């Protein structure tokens, strides 16, 4: 093999982290921007965006007087499509190859979020404004619903990465999100109902529940960002 002895025998010319001390996180993050951008599951994300904009755009084609209930559900469909796209955000076929690098998982995950979440927020804004103003549901409330669904998708991806070996859990997560969404729409009892109309007396209560879903999902996601040092629960079990 050409040059093997020489090249492997040479002292590495690289700036070793050991010698100079680890570089600050923002320097690493800046260097990672381009490769992380290139490694994003762009097809899945783009498909989510396109499918999310379609229902909102479809509201423009509806003839007759504005139908608030229809417009509301079209925006819910948009939010679901965006969430399904986000479920793929942490898919990483190189996960196992890069499992033991010193740059910590929160940095890599944070970069992915930073690159995608602003675009997704812009797409959601576009979806809102694609709907005719007359008949559009209250923007704050429907945005809360959309944010909750999308954060649930992201938290599910974080949990999957933390607790499984799957490199690309996006398909399974999106199937779960889809099931949970329709399950919640069809099966929740009235006092837990999430999907109500603006004229429904439970509208405010439902949005308090949406806020709860958002907070819980965000907490679960944040807790799943960490890399475990010890498997504490199994340690306790093993010691028994």
């Amino acid at each position, binding site marked *: *093999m*050409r*040059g*093997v*002895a020489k*090249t*492997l*025998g*040479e*002292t*590495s*010319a*690289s*700036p*070793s*982290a*050991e010698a100079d001390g*680890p*570089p600050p996180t923002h*320097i*690493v993050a800046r*260097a*990672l921007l381009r*490769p992380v951008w*290139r*490694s994003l599951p762009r097809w899945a994300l783009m498909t989510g965006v396109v499918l999310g904009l379609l229902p909102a755009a479809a509201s423009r084609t509806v003839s007759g007087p504005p139908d608030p209930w229809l417009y509301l559900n079209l925006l819910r469909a948009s939010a679901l499509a965006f969430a399904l796209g986000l479920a793929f955000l942490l898919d*990483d*076929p*190189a*996960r*196992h*190859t*890069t*499992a*033991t*690098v*010193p*740059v*910590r998982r929160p940095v*890599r995950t944070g970069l992915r979020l930073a690159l995608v979440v602003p675009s997704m927020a812009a797409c959601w804004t576009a979806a809102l404004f694609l709907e005719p103003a007359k008949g559009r549901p209250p923007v704050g409330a429907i945005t809360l619903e959309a944010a909750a669904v999308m954060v649930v998708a992201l938290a599910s991806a974080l949990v999957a990465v933390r607790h499984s070996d799957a*490199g690309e859990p996006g398909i399974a997560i999106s199937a779960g999100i889809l099931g949970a969404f329709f399950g919640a729409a069809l099966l929740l009892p009235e006092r837990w109902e999430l999907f109500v109309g603006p004229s429904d007396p439970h509208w405010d209560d439902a949005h308090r529940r949406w806020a709860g879903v958002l907070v819980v999902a965000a907490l679960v996601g944040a807790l799943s960002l960490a*890399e*475990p*040092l*010890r*498997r504490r629960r*199994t*340690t306790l*079990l*093993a*010691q028994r």
Partner: protein
Amino acid sequence: MIPTVSASGLTLRFGGTRALDDVSVRLAEGVTGLLGPNGAGKTTLLRVLATAVPADRGSFTVLGHDPGTTAGRLDVRRALGYLPQTPGFHQDFSAFEFVDYVAILKELTDRTARHREVRRVLEAVDLSDVRGKRIKRLSGGMRQRVALAAALVGDPGFLVLDEPTVGLDPEQRMRFRELIAQAGEGRTVLLSTHQTEDVAMLCHRVIVMAGGRIRFEGTPAELTDRAAGRVWSSTERDPAARAGWRTGTGAFRNVGDPPEGADLLEPTLEDGYLLTLDGETAEVAA
């Protein structure tokens, strides 16, 4: 032997299965082979030592760093190169881009020096000519070398290789052996493999695992010696043999406790390995 990696009492359960059962090992500079049947716990041990998965119990140090704390784990990772059993890639990256990406993840942030380092490791694994080619267009052997280059980038002191020669043709395997032998000069390499020839040709020490435990630790010669006087030839498969198979000459090679006056043969490392497992492995088909 001056240990660079030292592990004590590593235990890890998956459900009801003990993947690692009180494993203690000490590794020194050079290539150490890790042999064992499927499910022996080889990959789990490698993943624990590579800090990919934490152990339930036990502790270890790598080049003096203790991964039991966040800072210690990062220090271990800075000293580590890891080639997993099934390396994955971003298929649209070129070989250069992928190794460069891993180099950034290893905190090599100075662009000029990093690119020099990436070129060095790609040259080391003989991929300089195809470094601009997308990974999806590379052969399986080339992809495996990209993964090895990614493990080597940053000149790690401890290299963990999980079955790197699986799926390679004989020529590619020879190339890999050459690379691993070179990589073992001046650093600690732990090589998991099913190929006893890999161990015989490459390793200065060998560990045999089965059922999550260490069954043997020593030199390849010592493992081979375990079969001294316990390998014999016969015209029919000897029912007393623990394993026996017909060789290319038509005679049977038997491993176990030979009968009186048996035609003894020179043992190989594989014979020693089979006897060490002592019936835990599947029978060798006749």
